[in-house]
């Protein structure tokens, strides 16, 4: 059976959702303002006859009309970074400012790390943490290609990251990745409720540690690219005794509120303040994002 069937009740226009889910995703990229400003980059694309469309909700996001965007000179020189459209949401919700100290707890391959860096104008400090040695390589090479100078990389298990205070922490958690199905088959085959529950234990521990590390009043953003409530609302609900949810609003990007009922159980009403993004709403992948402010 299609593992997504269990979401029939929570995803609006489910049939349309399923149709879009089987269509390929358009390639997207972010303009890297550490190396190139937006008008100059767009001018270059125009000159080279490369088709693009700017996102309605983010002027630095581009839908590209090319087959292998990774091979563009602009990508090799680090003027753009190939990044999924919704992957650009969590850094915006995190809202880092130049000079702050930020932790990216689950960082590789660093698409969000580098976006945070450009939002901070290469000032302040980002610690990009990634326990997997193999995954540190792409993280480093993306930071270097994009001209990032304010990132240090660590390799802790995020559950035990040492006690250092941060203004903001991003937990872009390892998840069942159901929202990435449009990137290619295979994700769904591994997806089921049991797997989600296994991941949930890890996700809760990561989020709890992130909240321990954030300063009081600091912002913690929790995000996944999956639909499973076990990995989303149920994880966030477990920390609502130490943080409050804040509503996310990104003008021009359609979302659905986080769910408050699942499998006959009523969840905390505040979870509506978190956001679910579905493929058929904006022609993207799928994502879940929650913004927490530490008490």
């Amino acid at each position, binding site marked *: 059976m299609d593992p997504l069937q269990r979401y029939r009740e929570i995803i609006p226009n489910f049939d349309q959702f399923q149709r879009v889910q089987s269509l390929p995703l358009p390639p997207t990229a972010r303009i890297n303002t550490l*190396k190139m400003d937006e008008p100059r980059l767009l001018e270059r694309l125009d000159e080279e006859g490369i088709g693009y469309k700017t996102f309605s909700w983010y002027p630095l996001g581009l839908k590209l009309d090319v087959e292998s965007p990774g*091979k563009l000179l602009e990508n*090799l020189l*680090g003027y753009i970074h190939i990044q999924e459209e919704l992957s650009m949401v969590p850094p915006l919700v995190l809202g880092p400012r130049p000079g702050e100290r930020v932790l990216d707890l689950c960082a590789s391959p660093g698409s969000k790390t580098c976006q945070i860096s450009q939002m901070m104008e290469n000032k302040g*400090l980002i*610690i990009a943490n990634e326990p997997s040695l193999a995954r540190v390589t792409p993280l480093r090479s993306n930071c270097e290609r994009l001209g990032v100078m304010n990132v*240090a*990389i660590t390799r802790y298990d995020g559950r035990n990251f040492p006690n250092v205070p941060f203004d903001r922490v991003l937990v872009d958690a390892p998840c069942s990745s159901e929202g990435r199905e449009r990137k290619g088959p295979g994700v769904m085959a591994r997806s089921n409720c049991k797997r989600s529950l296994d991941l949930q234990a890890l996700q809760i521990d990561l989020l709890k540690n992130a909240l321990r590390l954030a300063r009081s009043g600091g912002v913690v953003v929790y995000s996944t690219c999956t639909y499973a409530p076990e990995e989303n609302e149920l994880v966030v609900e477990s920390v609502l005794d130490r943080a409050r949810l804040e509503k996310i609003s990104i003008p021009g990007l359609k979302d659905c509120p986080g769910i408050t009922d699942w499998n006959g159980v009523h969840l905390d009403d505040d979870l509506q303040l978190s956001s679910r993004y579905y493929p058929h709403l904006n022609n993207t992948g799928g994502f879940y994002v929650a913004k927490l402010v530490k008490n």
Partner: protein
Amino acid sequence: MSPSSSRIRNIFEPLEPSYVADLWNSRFGISLSVFLGYLFFRKAQSVWAVNDNCLPRISYEAIGMRIMNLKDRPWKPTTSALQVFGRHATKNVIHLDSINAMIFLEGKTLVIESNCEPGYVVVFYRGEVLGCGLYSHGKLVSQIPKERRMASVVENGACEDQ
């Protein structure tokens, strides 16, 4: 600071900014002030640069960007670092035309006349830094890292024909 001990212990040791700035100044004529606002570290034979900030005392895998390698004589700048600092260079730079720029980006060697001193040079195209090249005796050898090279149109075509 003790460059020799970091070579042995394989840990990040702070480096005097003037040590780094002087090397870049003498090879590329980059003003010393360009290197203000950064901290420098040495680990084994590599030098790293990071935005000047208080670094928590924890264990690091990487600190900022790897900017140079001291293993061989002369020292070698990374392409990433040249893309950040190289535009301030006032000597040992080579400007390429569009055909040569593409060949350089494919990672190949160009035959080119230049009055650069032999050694590593900053390679420009249309006023933008492409990366690091090694110049000597009328030859420019591209040092662009493999994963950042343009696929060679000619080579791929030849393979497909076979």
